[in-house]
C-alpha cells in the first residue's frame, strides 16, 4: 500500500501543477482591455460604415430624382418646340 502511495502522490502533484499552470496562462488585465478597445474600435467603424451606406442611398435617390427631372425637361423641350413650330 505504501509502495503505491508514492507514485500516486507524484501523479497527483504533476496533475495539480499542470492545472495550476494552465490557470495562470490566461490573458492579463492589460491584454483584456486591449481586446475590449479593439472591439470598441470595430463597432465605431461599423457605425461609420452604416452611415456611409445611408449617405450613398440618399445620393442614389437624388440622382434618380435628377434623372427623372432631366428627362421631364427634355420631353418639355420637345413639346414646346413642337408647339412653337406649329404656330
Amino acid at each position, binding site marked *: 500500500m*505504501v509502495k503505491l502511495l508514492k507514485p500516486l502522490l507524484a501523479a497527483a502533484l504533476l496533475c495539480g501543477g499542470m492545472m495550476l499552470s494552465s490557470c495562470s*496562462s490566461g490573458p492579463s488585465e492589460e491584454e483584456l482591455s486591449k481586446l475590449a478597445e479593439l472591439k470598441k474600435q470595430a463597432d465605431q*467603424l461599423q457605425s*461609420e460604415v452604416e452611415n456611409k451606406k445611408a449617405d*450613398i442611398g440618399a445620393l442614389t435617390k437624388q440622382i434618380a430624382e*435628377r434623372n427623372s427631372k432631366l428627362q421631364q425637361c427634355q420631353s418639355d423641350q420637345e413639346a414646346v418646340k413642337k408647339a412653337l413650330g406649329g404656330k
Partner: protein
Amino acid sequence: MKTTAMILILTAFALLVGAASSIAQEKMGRDEWQSEMRNASNRITSLHKEGRDLDSQKIVLQSQLTKLDADVKTCEDALYAMLGVTRADVQAFDKDLNDMEKRVGELQRMTDAELVGYKDEINRMNERLKEMAASKIALIPRYGDRVHSLQDKVAALMKSLSKEKTYTVGTWSRDRDCLWNIARKKDIYDNAWMWPKIWQGNRDLIKDPDIIKPHWVLKIPEGKELSRDEKSAANRYYRKKATGPASQ
C-alpha cells in the same frame, strides 16, 4: 495511520485542483484571447477597406449628382429661353397655380349656397386662368395640364353658381312682398320662418330686413334649414324689435 493521512491529503489536493480548474474554465484562455484579438483586428481591417470603398463610391455619386444638376439647369435655361421667359417668371407661375389649386380645393368642398358668397372670387379666378392658359409658360405640358385641369374645376364651380335661384321683388300694393311673404311662397321655401336666409344671402342689398325695394333681384340661397349665423341674425333682429323703436 500514515496511510490514512496520506489519502486525506491526496483527496484534499484533488479537490483543490478540481476547484482551481473550474475557476480557470470561467476565465478566458490565452488561445481564446488570441483568437478574439485576431478576429477583431481582421474586422477592423475589413471595415477600413469597406469604408474606403464607400468613400470612393460617394465621391463618384456626388460628382454624378453635380453633373446632373448642371444638366437640368442647362436644359431648363434652354427651355425658358425658347419661351422667352425667366426662371423667376416660371416660379411665380408655379406659385400662382399652387395657390389656386389649394383655393379651388376649398371651394369644391363648399355647398352651392355657400359658394354664392364667393362668386366674385370664382369669376376672378376664371379670368386669371384664361390669362395663364394664354401664357407661353402654359406651353410647357406639366404647367399647361395643370391650368386646363383647374379651368375644368372652376367651370364646374361656375356651373354650380349659375344654378342659383333668384327672386325679383314686386310692389307691396300688388304683390305684398316682404321677406316673410317671399320665404313662404311655394316655389321659394314654402316656409315663412326661412326669411333670415334670404336676408343673410343678400346682405349687400338688404341693410334692414323690414325694407326691401321693388325690382331688387334677391338671391335665394339653397337649403331647408337656417344656418347658425342665420339663426343668430334672426335672434338679433327679434331682440331689437322687442326692445322697441326707442332703443333703435
